């Protein structure tokens, strides 16, 4: 029932009319009556305003007062530009880091997928923890078993990754990563085309025409979203396929491929090995929950069916492999590699925020102590404690608001950075952008900080005599304030220490990995991918091609040696599975033990010489170890030592017994002709490696080329490419890199981890240094008189200097101790959630402590120098 403007006006008009009427009745003439009435009423506008004021809400008055306070705060802060800038930048860093990390966490872990009914979409994975294989994928017979026996899954979709040499879509012939899928795949995934159609059940089977769907990223980035691409024909290895459609933007899982084709494009998928061998596993499996079925029900049924399958075919599931089945929602599966790292980053960002807040609290506290005089005057003039708090709140609101704005501005580039980083762990990070919720988070954090900060300073007590504060203009520091300042500084040091030690641990691990001795010639050996798919695998033509290429390249100037192999160290890690079972003549596994497993590598003659791996016994392969001659093999030192303790490995026979090879008929023993030093081409930090080398010319070839250069290895790349193209014009020549660079590339996630974490630690260190310097500077300026007295009674300036420096070091030491204790406790808590948490070794811990002490001493240098230069007379006169 608030009267509006019109109501008020009418009421006043009514009043005037009555007043005029009365006057006219008393005999005045209308004009003067009107004037007199208006005069009597007074200022109409003023009355109207004060009437409206009656109706206004109380909080409006409060808001007006706050606005006044904010205007005042702005003016006051203009006189303390340095402090304001420090506070704003510190808060912006804290808020920006949190907002950025939070956006990424939200985008990667919490956002639903674009797939239709994505929470019914599940991912099924088979693993063999006993062999260290996280994902063994499925074979076609396994797939058929699951499909025919499971009822809680309404439909299965299968996906296998194949490398094709692709000719036809844009540019040179090149290797592309492609998905090969059954007709149900896209329906199960619940994806739609943006152009043309996707694959369906009519594309299944060996008689269908080759058909391929382009992924959205490939279509937009490599083909400039060209709509005429539909209907074009591409060559995929030996087969052709027609482009039938473009897939909508979606998370590429399990592999980021450029095209997805039907089964007929891959001759391998139609072969007997693929269709009949239970252990020939290369297919990923997806499913859609049947109506009414829950994830738990599907998991229970799948596990039971899988266990039954394992009982029926014990030969395909060795007990040592400990084969297991895992069933998860696809969304969780996609998020899982990024979860830990993102949560760790979130924690790091939160720590940075705490450090930033405590630093700001410190600065504000110091400022408010300097303002005690002003606050006392305000209190004496009748400002209640509410009004004083409001003054303080206005100031911290201005500071935190500015910090939040800057932080949100900072968040945009930070999000881009963190997203690029997180993309290594989850493809979803590529789509992350700053979302509006970041604004709310930024605002929320700033508000929290502002309110907190307003309650940090002590108000002048209404009971204590205010005279002192009013009269003396100098700063007085009470033990309580001093304690609080030091507490905040110590907190910062403690948190910084945790971050620094963590960053140190990551760096130490990285350095260890980067400098580990690998046994290879790292700098001079250049590795190429020369995939064999164009010149179909394993036949005489392919062998001729590689031999011709080897001869041609070795004639180039600056080439010391050339060899063909099957496996670029580390870059191809995991691509050949966890190794195969074998046995050697005269070896009997102990009871309950299975045959040992070894990695199988195909290498051409001179491979070991080119890569710098020493031959310890026997001979290298030669060009005479070719098809039709006696099967021979070379083993690594670990095999020789473990299986032939008497050192007589050479000339004994080795036989592959793994069920994978059963398809090729009865295995043929091969004679061991040599022993080479161990090299671990799977792990950057080498462990013992059981490796069996087979002659490339005898077995077939797997498409890797190694060139030992005398000069700059990369200078050889054009010449090598030219030689190969002269032999075969369509042959892709790719990924030329020295072994050194291959290792660096493989380590880049670790390097990024270390880099990002070091970034956080650096920010934390910077803030902590500012904090310690601020506390000591304040403490020194407040104790000018004390220092004056000390100097007057005979202290040497050098002693004062040492005193202040040691105060800084003391803050750091206490902080480090607290950080170490807290960090250890935190790691214990974290360990109960995540299982294993790695604790930093002694070196990173000591390093972090040394850095912090050093930084604290440097930070205290300036205040210490000021303390030692105090003018005795002035100091004593100052009060």
């Amino acid at each position, binding site marked *: 029932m608030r009267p509006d403007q019109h109501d008020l006006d009418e009421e006043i008009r*009514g009043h005037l009319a009555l007043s005029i009427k009365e006057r006219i009745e008393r005999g005045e003439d209308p004009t003067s009556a009107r004037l007199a009435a208006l005069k009597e009423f007074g200022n109409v506008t003023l009355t109207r305003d004060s009437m409206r004021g009656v109706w206004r809400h109380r909080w409006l008055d409060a808001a007006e007062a706050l606005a006044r306070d904010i205007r005042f705060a702005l003016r006051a802060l203009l006189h303390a530009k340095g402090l304001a800038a420090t506070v704003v930048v510190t808060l912006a860093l804290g808020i920006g880091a949190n907002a950025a990390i939070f956006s990424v966490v939200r985008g990667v872990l919490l956002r639903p997928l674009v797939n239709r009914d994505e929470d019914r979409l599940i991912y099924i994975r088979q693993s063999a923890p006993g062999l260290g294989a996280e994902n063994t994928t499925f074979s076609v017979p396994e797939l058929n078993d699951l499909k025919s026996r499971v009822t809680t899954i309404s439909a299965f979709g299968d996906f296998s990754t194949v490398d094709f040499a692709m000719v036809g879509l844009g540019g040179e012939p090149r290797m592309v990563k492609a998905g090969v899928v059954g007709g149900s795949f896209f329906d199960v995934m619940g994806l739609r085309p943006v152009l043309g159609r996707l694959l369906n059940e009519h594309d299944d089977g060996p008689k269908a025409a080759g058909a391929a769907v382009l992924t959205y990223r490939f279509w937009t980035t490599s083909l400039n979203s060209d709509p005429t691409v539909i209907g074009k024909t591409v060559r995929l290895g030996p087969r052709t396929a027609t482009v039938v459609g473009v897939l909508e933007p979606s998370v590429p899982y399990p592999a980021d491929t450029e095209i997805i084709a039907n089964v007929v494009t891959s001759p391998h998928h139609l072969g007997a090995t693929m269709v009949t061998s239970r252990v020939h596993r290369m297919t990923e499996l997806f499913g859609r929950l049947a109506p009414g079925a829950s994830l738990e029900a599907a998991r229970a049924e799948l596990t039971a069916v899988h266990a039954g399958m394992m009982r029926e075919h014990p030969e395909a599931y060795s007990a040592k492999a400990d084969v297991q089945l895992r069933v998860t929602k696809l969304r969780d599966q996609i998020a899982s590699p990024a979860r830990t790292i993102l949560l760790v980053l979130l924690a790091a960002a939160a720590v940075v925020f705490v450090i930033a807040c405590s630093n700001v609290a410190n600065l504000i506290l110091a400022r408010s102590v300097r303002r005690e005089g002003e606050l006392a005057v305000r209190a004496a003039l009748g400002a209640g404690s509410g009004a004083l708090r409001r003054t303080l709140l206005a100031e911290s609101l201005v500071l935190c608001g500015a910090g939040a704005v800057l932080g949100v501005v900072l968040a945009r580039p930070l999000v881009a950075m963190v997203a690029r980083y997180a993309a290594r762990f989850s493809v979803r990070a590529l789509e992350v952008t700053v979302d509006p919720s970041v604004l709310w988070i930024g605002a929320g954090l700033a508000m929290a900080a502002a309110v907190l900060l307003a309650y940090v300073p002590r108000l002048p007590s209404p009971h204590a005599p205010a005279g002192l504060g009013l009269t003396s203009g100098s700063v007085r520091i009470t033990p309580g304030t001093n304690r609080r300042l030091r507490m905040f500084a110590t907190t910062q040091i403690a948190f910084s220490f945790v971050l620094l030690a963590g960053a140190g641990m990551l760096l130490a691990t990285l350095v260890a990995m980067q400098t580990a001795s690998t046994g290879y010639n790292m700098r001079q050996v250049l590795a190429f991918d020369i995939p064999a798919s164009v010149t179909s695998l394993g036949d005489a033509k392919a062998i001729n091609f590689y031999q011709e290429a080897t001869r041609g390249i070795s004639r180039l100037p600056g080439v010391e040696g050339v060899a063909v192999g099957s496996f670029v160290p580390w870059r191809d890690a995991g691509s050949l599975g966890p190794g195969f079972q074998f046995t050697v003549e005269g070896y009997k596994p102990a009871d309950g033990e299975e045959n040992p497993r070894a990695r199988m590598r195909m290498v051409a003659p001179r491979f070991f010489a080119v890569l710098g791996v020493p031959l310890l016994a026997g001979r290298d392969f030669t060009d005479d170890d070719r098809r039709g001659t006696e099967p021979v093999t070379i083993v690594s030192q670990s095999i020789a030592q473990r299986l032939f303790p008497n050192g007589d490995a050479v000339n004994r026979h080795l036989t592959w017994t793994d069920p994978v090879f059963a398809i090729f008929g009865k295995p043929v023993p091969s004679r061991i002709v040599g022993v080479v030093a161990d090299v671990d081409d799977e792990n950057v930090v080498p462990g013992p490696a059981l490796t069996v080398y087979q002659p490339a010319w005898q077995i077939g070839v797997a498409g890797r080329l190694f060139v030992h250069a005398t000069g700059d290895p990369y200078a050889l790349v054009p010449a090598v490419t030219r030689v190969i193209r002269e032999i075969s014009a369509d042959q892709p020549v790719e990924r030329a890199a020295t072994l050194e660079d291959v290792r660096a590339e493989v380590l880049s996630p670790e390097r990024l981890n270390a880099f990002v974490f070091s970034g956080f630690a650096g920010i934390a260190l910077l803030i902590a240094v500012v904090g310690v310097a601020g506390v000591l500077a304040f403490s020194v300026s407040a104790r000018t008189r004390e220092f004056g007295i000390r100097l007057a009674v005979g202290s040497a300036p050098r002693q004062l200097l040492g005193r202040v420096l040691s105060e800084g070091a003391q803050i750091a030491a206490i902080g480090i101790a607290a950080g170490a204790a807290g960090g250890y406790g935190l790691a214990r808590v974290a360990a109960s959630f995540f299982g294993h948490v790695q604790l930093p070794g002694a070196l990173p811990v000591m390093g972090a402590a040394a850095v912090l002490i050093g930084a604290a001493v440097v930070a205290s240098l300036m205040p210490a120098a000021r303390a030692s230069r105090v003018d005795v007379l002035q100091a004593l006169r100052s009060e």
Partner: protein
Amino acid sequence: MTKHPDEQRLELLQGTLDMLILRTLQWGPQHGHGIGQAIRARSDELLKVETGSLYPALHRLVKRGWLKPEWGVSEANQRAKYYRLTTAGKAQLSREQDRWSQLVDAIGRIMNPAPASKE
């Protein structure tokens, strides 16, 4: 009705205007002008209520729920807002009257102290 020169007018004591308004409205609903005139007439022209105070006071009393405004037609044939005393307003009036008489009593004792012997 004698006219007092301006200097003989009395300033309203702070906080008494509300009570005077409530008291005036005891005789029935009245518009703002009428209330001002009534207070002036009943005080023998000694008290004059400024419209700049009267209207904010009226609105304040409405907001507290002691008065209820309603539109009517004034003797000048104009639409005018009449204020009526509510039940809560009546209760408030009696409270204020009590307080007022206590205050007058107290001030009276201070200004004209009774001889001690009289007790």
